[in-house]
């Protein structure tokens, strides 16, 4: 871990009706790291993402990004360079793949409302510039052939890729992936692993991954944090985590002595 973490949560806590979804979670992710957060169902993994993105307001604790506290509104967080995908795919179902990914460019669009309303040449130039970037991303994720399909008509695996494409289109510094492989075929999963590695290595984007497929997690993570009932019970390299007795207990339950 580098001296100055890119993303740092300190004592992050949030409770829903007396149930502590997150309980004093400390996490420090360095720049260009690939980190996984794992844990049984209801451990608070998605809640952690929601707190970082500004969708939930934590009861206590601070989240700092690039050594500054994160703003409260989700769109302001996006502007700081944090993008994410969702566990239950949140795409714009009635729109095409192209329009979904183009929305990822939203925060980089500089043309004014008036330019858009009148369709001025300035608007056209800007739109084409963003379209070029979107086509690069579609190319990277192998989605070119689907660009005019309505997103709701695509198979689950491709919908997950469209979500990643939309997140990448925002040019994030930090990418939060929430169970990107669920609903994918074995082949798509293997493909996904290489893409996530590329996102980190070629695009230099820091990745935090919430994932249930432990083969993927163990294969690509620099280090892993384990949550159970909102508490971080372990943190370390894949080898260390696999042998950690607390993690084994959390996943398999108490073993009789």
């Amino acid at each position: 871990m580098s001296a100055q973490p890119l993303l740092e949560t300190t004592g992050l806590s949030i409770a829903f009706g007396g149930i502590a979804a997150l309980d004093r979670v400390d996490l420090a992710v360095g720049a260009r790291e690939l980190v996984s957060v794992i844990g049984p169902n209801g451990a608070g993994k998605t809640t952690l993402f929601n707190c970082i993105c500004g969708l939930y307001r934590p009861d206590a604790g601070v989240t700092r990004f690039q050594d500054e506290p994160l703003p409260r509104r989700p769109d302001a967080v996006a502007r700081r360079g944090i993008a994410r995908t969702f566990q239950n795919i949140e795409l714009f179902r009635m729109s095409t793949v192209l329009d979904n990914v183009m929305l990822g460019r939203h925060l980089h669009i500089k043309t004014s409302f008036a330019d858009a309303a009148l369709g001025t040449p300035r608007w056209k130039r800007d739109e084409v510039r963003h379209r070029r970037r979107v086509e690069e991303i579609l190319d990277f994720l192998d989605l070119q052939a689907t660009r005019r399909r309505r997103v709701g008509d695509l198979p689950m695996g491709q919908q997950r890729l469209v979500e990643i494409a939309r997140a990448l289109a925002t040019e994030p510094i930090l990418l939060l992936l929430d169970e990107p492989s669920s609903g994918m075929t074995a082949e798509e999963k293997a493909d996904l692993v290489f893409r996530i590695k590329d996102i980190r290595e070629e695009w230099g984007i820091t990745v935090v991954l919430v994932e249930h497929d432990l083969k993927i997690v163990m294969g690509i993570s620099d280090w892993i944090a384990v949550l159970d009932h909102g508490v971080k019970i372990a943190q370390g390299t894949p080898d260390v985590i696999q042998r950690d007795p607390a993690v084994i207990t959390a996943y398999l339950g108490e073993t009789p002595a």
Partner: protein
Amino acid sequence: MLPRSADVALGSRASPRTARIHLLSVSSDLLERYQDDLYLVKGATGWLTVAALLVGLVALPFFLPKVGLGYLLFIAILMAANVIVAVGLNMLVGFTGLISLGHAGFVAIGAYASGLLAAKFGLPWYAAWIGAAVITAGFGFLVGLPALRLTGPYLAIATLGFGIAVYQVLVNWTALSGGRTGLPVQQLSFGIAGLTATQQLYYVAAGAAVVLSWVGYNLARSHVGRALAAIRDSDIAAEVTGVNLLWYKTLAFAISAAYAGIAGAIIAQALRHLEPQSFTFLESITYFAMIVIGGLGTVSGAIIGAVILTLLPHYLSGLRQWLPIFYGAAIILMMMVEPRGIYGRWVRIKMYFKAWPL
């Protein structure tokens, strides 16, 4: 370790050729640059249709009296106003997914504002109309603020309440509205020589409808339209992707209200006498029915719905008392059978024949 078969999967990327073929199958003309995608009107057939429509609109005032239908020019003016309201309302309901059952309130504010601005301050017509649009946009912004917290039926009730409140204020604030007896609206001079007052108003109204529809098409394909559709389909994803919900939801209300304001100004000039009874809840439902029947979420759908629902009451004037029932039934039927409206069905039929014989 990971299976190496992933390499094979990566190697199977679609070649540029397959992408080109895909483009071909969707559009009749070959698209070669990304910019080609941005044209609103594509191909010779598209331009011919637009040209025919525009020529038809220009020729209408001279053509109608020739076939003994001169009185329809007045209906055409109301149609232009309805098209403007429907395009604006669709921006709110169809694109952004925010329901308004009180749009007659905005139309009323536009009508009275334009009439009063011209009468009290002696403004020329365009200044009075722009003033009416600005004032209604302001009201739209205010009504939009609760929309940040309210969705679905709750927002429907809130906007319904707004529509009724406007009506009640107009009935009771007699100094402003003339009360139940009504407010006479002075005839504005549009300064087009050689035409009757109705013909002048027709050209101004039709011109406004064309320009505002064109702006609607522009907004729909731009980042504004994408952001509004994103809010409709998944507001949390829109937010997390960088769309400011506060700004875009209130913007949708403001645009939609401004459109209604312009339409109100046209209606004020057409009726020349305003009374609150012209802007009741039934009007709001009629506007709503226009976009549902024509097609939610498309500018063309709004235009088609407005045209149909302007002509229908005219030809069914003997059955006027049945119209609310008809609108209600049509809304339910459309929602069940074809949620994208008549225009959506038309697009599907077109795609079917384009793909034929597949």
